[in-house]
């Protein structure tokens, strides 16, 4: 009896410790983001107050209104940056997906020589640090005259996204049993038809999440964009965020509001993909 009671108390203590640990971990993860969101609603006076004001007294949407009411008011042309980001990310994602699907299918369904070396080689192109790649790209682009254009940045992002897209899509095609497509071919489909009618729909959700991942990479990229863009013609949001810090007095509230604008699309999209993303990355980890 005594031992039973001891074990039970031990168990309760452990579960309390577990809950506290979880709570602390989640707080650390969430707090910085929430703090930014909160600050974007507060007046600058309150953000700068000394001693700090912990309980928000006065929340408003002023920062957002100022940001979208044009260059003169909010300091930076957010709408243009947002448009550039959207165009560049969507286009480069679409192209990277098309290329990645072809490549991923090749890796998942065919045997060929030097397969794993080619795979590693593709991955290695991804390891080149953006800033290191930006030096020659800057030079080449300025010779070609495509600095500060959507086209230049789209090309760069396609190349950036293709290796990882191939990795993910390869994993998703491998999860689709080979027999299904073969059965379709026996029933009279061409290989092309079998792909679109059978394998593509089955791998569809996975491919979509690979697309979202590519979108997020382009949406968030900074090192290349900061050198290959010059003006509102092609500047993206991450580069725009830096516009604020260049000035001597930082408009913390405006920056926070811009940060919230940047994070919302990413937030929504990540929620949609989270399940497939993990399964795509780990496919083959166990089966080899």
């Amino acid at each position, binding site marked *: 009896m005594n031992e039973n009671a001891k074990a039970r108390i031990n168990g309760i203590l452990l579960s309390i410790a577990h809950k506290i640990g979880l709570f602390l*971990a989640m707080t650390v993860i969430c707090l910085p983001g929430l703090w930014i969101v909160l600050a974007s609603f507060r007046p600058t006076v309150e953000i700068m107050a000394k001693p700090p004001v912990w309980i928000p007294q006065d929340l408003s949407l002023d920062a957002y209104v100022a940001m979208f009411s044009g260059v003169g008011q909010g300091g930076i042309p957010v709408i243009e940056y947002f448009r550039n980001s959207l165009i560049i990310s969507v286009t480069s994602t679409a192209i990277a997906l098309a*290329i990645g699907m072809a490549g991923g299918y090749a890796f998942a369904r065919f045997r060929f020589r030097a397969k794993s070396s080619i795979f590693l080689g593709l991955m290695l192109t991804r390891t080149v640090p953006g800033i290191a790649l930006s030096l020659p*790209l800057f030079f080449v682009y300025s010779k070609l005259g495509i600095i500060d254009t959507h086209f230049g940045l789209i090309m*760069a992002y396609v190349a950036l996204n293709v290796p990882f897209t191939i990795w993910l899509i390869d994993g998703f095609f491998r999860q689709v049993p080979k027999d299904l497509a073969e059965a379709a071919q026996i029933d009279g489909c061409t290989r092309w038809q079998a792909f679109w009618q059978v394998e593509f729909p089955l791998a569809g959700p996975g491919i979509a999440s690979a697309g979202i991942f590519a979108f997020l990479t382009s949406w968030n990229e900074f090192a290349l964009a900061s050198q290959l863009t010059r003006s509102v013609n092609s500047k993206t949001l*991450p580069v725009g965020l830096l516009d604020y810090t260049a000035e001597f007095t930082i408009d913390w509230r405006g920056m926070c509001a811009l940060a919230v604008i940047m994070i919302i699309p990413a937030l929504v999209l990540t929620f949609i993909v989270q399940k497939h993303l993990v399964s795509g990355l780990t496919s083959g980890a166990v089966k080899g």
Partner: protein
Amino acid sequence: MKGWRPPAPFLLLLPAILVLAAVVIVPLILSLYSSFTPFRLTQPASLYMFVGFRNYARILTDLEFWTAFGRTVLLLTVALNVEMLLGLGLAMLVEKATRGQRLLRTIMMFPMMFSPILVGFQFKFMFNDNIGLVNNALQSLGLTDQAIPWLIDGTLAFTAILIAEVWSSTSVFAILILAGLLAMPKEPIEAARVDGCTPWQTFRYVTWPFIMPFAYIAMTIRSLDVARAYDIVKIMTDGGPAKRTELLWTLVSRTAYADARMGLANAMAYVAILLSILFTVYFYRKLAAARTQIAAEW
């Protein structure tokens, strides 16, 4: 459609190879060439002057470069290890949770959505010596009555950058290790317990070998992207104050764009590229080895 047809996988991989050749390989060859010239953006003619290994020799004796190099390696080593440990802990905490696991997993992914530049800004805001959350909290709690110069003192700034880096990437490890924990069969753990293993032994000899490939996947993914730290440092301190948080990548960008010494910067960039490749190949090898080991044992 007569005559020789190229093999299908070659055709399928062709677009990928073409794009990568055009945007990555060819520019890199160009930059390799220009790393042997004293190329300056302001003097285009200097591109055709060949100086051999002078840039590299210059780097080898450059104290500033080696400081930045050492700091980069230190940052990566500490960050990757801490991320790995915290990610493992976080994954095990979440796996133990009986209720609300879906919600917990979603929250866990939160930092992954932040672009590195945002992470940098966010921590710049929090570590601001005057109005930042960290100092405000410390002062309100009465732990200190002075403003701690987080981003101004060299060591503290390095710590702040490290914290930002760890915050943003721990979730990659946590998510993948959690996937490993969830995919793991339960019988071996039960068998180990029946055989009288302590919890530590069960973890060390049963759980750990199984989730190791997942940890290596996370490592490989992370090492594909280690240079993301550039974005964080760029916005938090921009290598300052007085170059005390200068990393390899910020040094490259400063040499290339502020000093316009492209040739020298390209030579430095090649060292940075080799460093990245080294990290990736190392973890990729580990991943492949762990995979075959698992396949043999399970």
